[in-house]
């Protein structure tokens, strides 16, 4: 059993968190440049979104002032374990990087009246991997889109069309509150908390989503159905409402079918590395 170097792990995570906040993903760049504006208002909106990506990279400044809560998935490799106080090491490294990169301290501790009330304390999910190396996925998750998260316990006899309908209704309900066009993560099955973690994993796009026929039918149904929602870019009814839909299914109890839905804003900020 070998212990992962805590300094190396935490600094790599902090570096990734900084970079994803500054450099727009190529997937998003491609999707934004494909939008065809039809009037002056639409042109202003889409051009500002594209120009924002260029400005952020040039000035090394965050794409969005909401640099997000750091959500970190660590899949430890065979015979590898994490050092003691790894959560503190990671949190401290991100906080140091926050000043250096000009990010925002977005995590508030309501129990602290004086002193260090704000930080970028991360949320960390630990899993055991099937390979010799440790896989780390870092996501910067904005608060506006996080507020749109939904948990519903569906009937186990629900058809995939019922699942698709519920997801589409959920997107219609939130409208433009979370900076559309969205990326949708769906966790179906497991239990009430697992489906939301799986939804978040699906949202990162780094954990094998849309693999089975069932997952594909749901994601495709949501993607196609979203074209009729008329939300579009910035909620102005033009361009796509969602850029992608990613589903992960887990078997569940015969009496339940939990459905977790999470949203990402159009500034998808995710990076993966191995140790």
């Amino acid at each position, binding site marked *: 059993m070998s212990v992962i170097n805590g300094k190396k792990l935490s600094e790599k995570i902090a570096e990734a968190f900084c970079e994803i906040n500054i450099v727009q993903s190529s997937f998003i760049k491609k999707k934004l440049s494909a939008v065809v504006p039809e009037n002056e208002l639409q042109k202003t909106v889409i051009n500002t979104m594209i*120009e924002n990506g260029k*400005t952020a990279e040039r000035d090394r400044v965050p794409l969005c*002032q909401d640099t997000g809560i750091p959500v970190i998935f660590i899949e430890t490799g065979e015979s590898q374990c994490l050092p003691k106080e790894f959560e503190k090491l990671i949190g401290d490294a991100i906080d140091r990087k926050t000043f250096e990169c000009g990010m925002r*301290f977005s995590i508030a501790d309501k129990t602290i009246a004086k002193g260090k009330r704000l930080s970028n304390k991360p949320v960390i999910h630990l899993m055991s991997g099937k390979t010799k190396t440790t896989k780390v996925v870092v996501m910067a998750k904005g608060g*506006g889109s996080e507020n749109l998260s939904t948990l519903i316990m569906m009937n186990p006899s629900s058809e995939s069309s019922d699942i698709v309908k519920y997801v589409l209704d959920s997107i219609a309900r939130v*409208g433009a509150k979370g900076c559309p066009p969205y990326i949708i993560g769906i966790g179906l099955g497991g239990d009430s908390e697992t489906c939301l973690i799986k939804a978040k994993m699906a949202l990162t796009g780094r954990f094998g989503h849309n693999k089975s026929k069932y997952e594909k039918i749901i994601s495709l149904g949501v993607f196609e159905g979203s074209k009729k929602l008329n939300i579009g870019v910035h909620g102005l009814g033009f361009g796509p409402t969602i850029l992608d839909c990613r589903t992960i299914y887990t078997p569940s109890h015969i009496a339940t079918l939990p459905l977790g839905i999470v949203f990402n804003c159009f500034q998808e900020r995710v990076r993966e590395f191995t140790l």
Partner: protein
Amino acid sequence: MKRIQAAHFKGIINKLSAGEVILLSGTIYSARDAALNLLEKEKVFPKFLNGSIIFHAGPTEVNNKGFLSCGPTTSSRMDRYLEMLFENDVLATVGKGERDILVHKKFRRIYLTAIGGCGAIYGRKITELKSVMYEKLGSESIFKMKIEHFPLIVAIDVKGNSIY
């Protein structure tokens, strides 16, 4: 595209229509969840906010090149404070996403949206930034900011017309 000075906003408030794009310059103030919550609890509305435009935003730290990011946050979370703001003569708010239309119609006030997720662009257009109230709240404190040519959309006009 209309170029508007914040200091002259009151005079043109009735001439703005939902769907118009404007370029706003001048002095505005930021206030979001925590600061508005304190203003409501303390029941003393600061005079400097009378007649102002309020931007629902919380800036980042300044990076080592001297730049920061500062775009809009979701306005609907702060709909509960709108009456308080308008009763104290706040002329308009700037945020993103849908918000309460009826309150705007009642007080004949404007809701402007900045383009969400574009903090780098808006940050570049802030020429001065100073925390002037509730400094302990960090990025959520009330900042006085000088802005130049902020691209904004008139999302709700004084008649209650909305782009959403």
